[in-house]
């Protein structure tokens, strides 16, 4: 039987996660505590909990958080199994410290009807390494013209709708989606991009596109779409979520919309926080620096980082976008957009945001667990008693070197290959069970 709350793993034994530093932003908690788990759920948090009859997971010296959730990944199944599958994607998620992912609808066939929702859920049940929450298409075939059967997909387990990879270009269609989705209380996730302004652009329009002679994607292409959608959201009252927000101006508009009380949320991706458009030049046209939205200017990066700390940004999501080496090993202009993220996000954020003191650890945990759960209305993101016992264990001192050839993903398209990072997720528990890869 399918359950609308995802592919739950149930564990009948008791377990104590012993002596870890528990950080749970949903309860404002940052203390060394034991976590008691029963029947796959969090039973109790406390000091020196009785371990009689329980299995013990030693978490001394580790950080224990609600299971991390990546709400923007492409699992590529059905249709593009040569890039990724549900099976490889959830292993990749677990390896990166995630206990749940939400996957986008640009599959083949498109996830615009219930049969595809069920296929993804079935595959996820067969590979219990992380929970999978499918995101259905807004429009049939991602065509932008007719609404998909949103209610039917939600009944089968879809948690949100998005035409990600493509924007909903028509304002009339977006308005309709924001109205209709309210019947099922799911957010409308927009890949905000005005395709006319993008035209044949392949990187951020700025100094570096000018130097490299590559057609630019102006920040405006995102900004005009976010501006339009915020008006539509305000007018309809619909829940609107900006996927992979990448510009300072879009961020400022979201900040203002939140101040006015709109039902608006947004996510940013690690690469947009850590790299700038200059990387395309510094890497000599490496296709691992090509994604949408493109790596932006240093001013945009600064603005996004500020958005993390002031609460404008709700979520860090990786936009994990696997592509086969044959597709990426071509000249920059013709390579597909997108890079992997599941197995680099946590270490990148720990090393480049938390260690330098830009972001405190609790804020990062919020952005990677509590925040994502709230945006999509998922049961995780908290260690309150009664919640699913999905946990992530983090070693702040673990030194890792990113090696794409060791990824559990079927692909290896990352600009972070060879990066040496300190801090890593070292394990996850799913429904109280340690996940073994």
């Amino acid at each position, binding site marked *: 039987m399918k359950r609308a709350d995802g592919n739950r793993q149930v564990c009948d034994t008791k377990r104590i996660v012993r002596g870890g530093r528990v950080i749970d932003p949903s309860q404002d908690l940052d203390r060394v505590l034991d976590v008691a788990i029963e029947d796959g759920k969090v039973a109790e948090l406390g000091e020196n909990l009785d371990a009689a009859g329980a299995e013990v997971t030693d978490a001394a010296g580790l950080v224990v958080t609600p299971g991390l959730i990546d709400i923007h990944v492409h699992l590529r199944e059905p249709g593009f199994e040569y890039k990724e599958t549900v099976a490889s994607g959830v292993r990749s998620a677990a390896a990166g410290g995630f206990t749940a992912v939400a996957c986008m609808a640009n599959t083949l066939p498109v996830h615009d009807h219930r049969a595809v929702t069920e296929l993804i859920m079935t595959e996820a049940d067969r590979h219990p390494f992380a929970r999978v929450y499918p995101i259905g298409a807004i429009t049939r075939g991602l065509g932008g013209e007719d609404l998909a059967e949103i209610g039917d997909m939600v009944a089968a387990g879809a948690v949100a709708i998005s035409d990600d990879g493509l924007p909903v270009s028509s304002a009339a269609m977006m308005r309709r989606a924001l109205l209709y989705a309210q019947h099922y209380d799911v957010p409308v996730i927009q890949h905000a991009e005005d395709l006319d302004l993008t*035209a044949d652009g392949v990187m951020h*329009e*700025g*100094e570096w*596109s*000018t*130097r*490299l*002679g*590559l057609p*630019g994607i*102006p920040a405006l292409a995102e900004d005009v779409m976010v501006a339009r959608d915020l008006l539509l959201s305000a007018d309809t009252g619909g829940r609107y979520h900006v996927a992979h927000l990448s510009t300072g101006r879009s961020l400022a508009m979201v900040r203002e919309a939140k101040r006015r009380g709109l039902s608006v949320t947004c996510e940013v991706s690690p690469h947009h926080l850590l790299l700038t458009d200059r990387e395309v030049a510094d890497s*000599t*046209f490496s296709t691992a620096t090509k994604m949408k939205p493109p790596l932006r200017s240093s001013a945009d990066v600064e603005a996004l980082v500020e958005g993390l700390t002031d609460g404008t940004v709700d979520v860090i999501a990786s936009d994990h976008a696997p592509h086969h080496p*044959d597709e990426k*090993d*071509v*000249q*920059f*202009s*013709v390579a597909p957009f997108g890079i992997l993220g599941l197995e680099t996000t946590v270490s990148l954020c720990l090393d480049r945001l938390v260690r330098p003191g830009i972001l405190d650890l609790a804020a990062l945990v919020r952005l990677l667990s509590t925040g994502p759960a709230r945006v999509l209305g998922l049961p995780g993101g908290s260690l309150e008693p009664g919640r699913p016992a999905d946990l992530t264990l983090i070693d702040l001192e673990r030194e890792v070197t990113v090696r794409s050839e060791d990824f559990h993903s079927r692909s290896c398209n990352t600009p972070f290959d060879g990066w040496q990072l300190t801090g890593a997720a070292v394990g996850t528990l799913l429904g109280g069970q340690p996940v073994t890869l």
Partner: protein
Amino acid sequence: MSDTAPLRETPDAADTAWTRKHLLGIADLSPSEIELILDTAESFREVGERPIKKVPTLRGKTVMNLFFEPSTRTRSSFELAEKRLSADSLNFSGSGSALSKGETLIDTARNLEAMAPDLVVIRHQHPGVPHLLAERIDAGIINAGDGAHEHPTQALLDAFTIRQHKGGLEGLEVAIVGDIEHSRVVRSNIHLLTKMGARVTVAGLRTMMPVEVEKMGVRAAYDLGEATRGADVVMMLRVQLERQAGGSLFPSVREYFRLFGLSPERLKRAKEDAIVMHPGPMNRGTEISSLVADGTRSVILEQVANGVAVRMAVLYLLMAARGAAV
């Protein structure tokens, strides 16, 4: 370098400051490397004036000319340079090649490499393609134009021509006018001229100006008169009329000429001894009037002639750096 000696004997590569295996762009070159190419080209110019316009310098060496984009001038110029150096050259063009049958660029490159060329001259519509080949194959790569990125031999022949007329590049005022956004010629020229101490103004329609171009060390102007005032060199760029198909950047040729076409009247704002350049092919009546193109200030055909000498110099230097017995 004496007139012909280095061409007939086996020069010692260590005598030159040239160590690069590839010429991918002007951006990475130092001023002394640029000087070296220009000085070397001086000695090769003489070959073209001989009754028998050929030296044995690259005898037994193979040069592949890989043109994925139509080109008459640049390809002919390279071919002639190769023939004058006695290299064996092979021409490949984009249409009809394996690329149009779905083969990837890298597979095409690997196949070509199996034929063991010493140098590959490549023109491609996509920026970075020469750099990609340079990483993947053993041959020395010469960028003959990659999209709107670089066209280093054009900038070198332009500099060579300017030097002939002005004695040097330092302190010159150079105006480059036209479709700046889509021009590889302008980018290579900006790098070269600013490295050599010239002051560059780029001018064109606001719809054809790349963003933040000033960060490349130039002044941007949106008025032809302002750009050419006091200029020593006025370089006109071709308006790429074929780009007009994908959404026009200006309403009509006559309206373009009214704003940015170079007429004798407008040339008067430049210095009296200013020279007029154009990388070709020209659109007469669009960016330049025939009176200017064929006038006494025009050095456009000299540019073409100099192109052969400059390309001979580049081929020679790269081959020498490969450590081959040239």
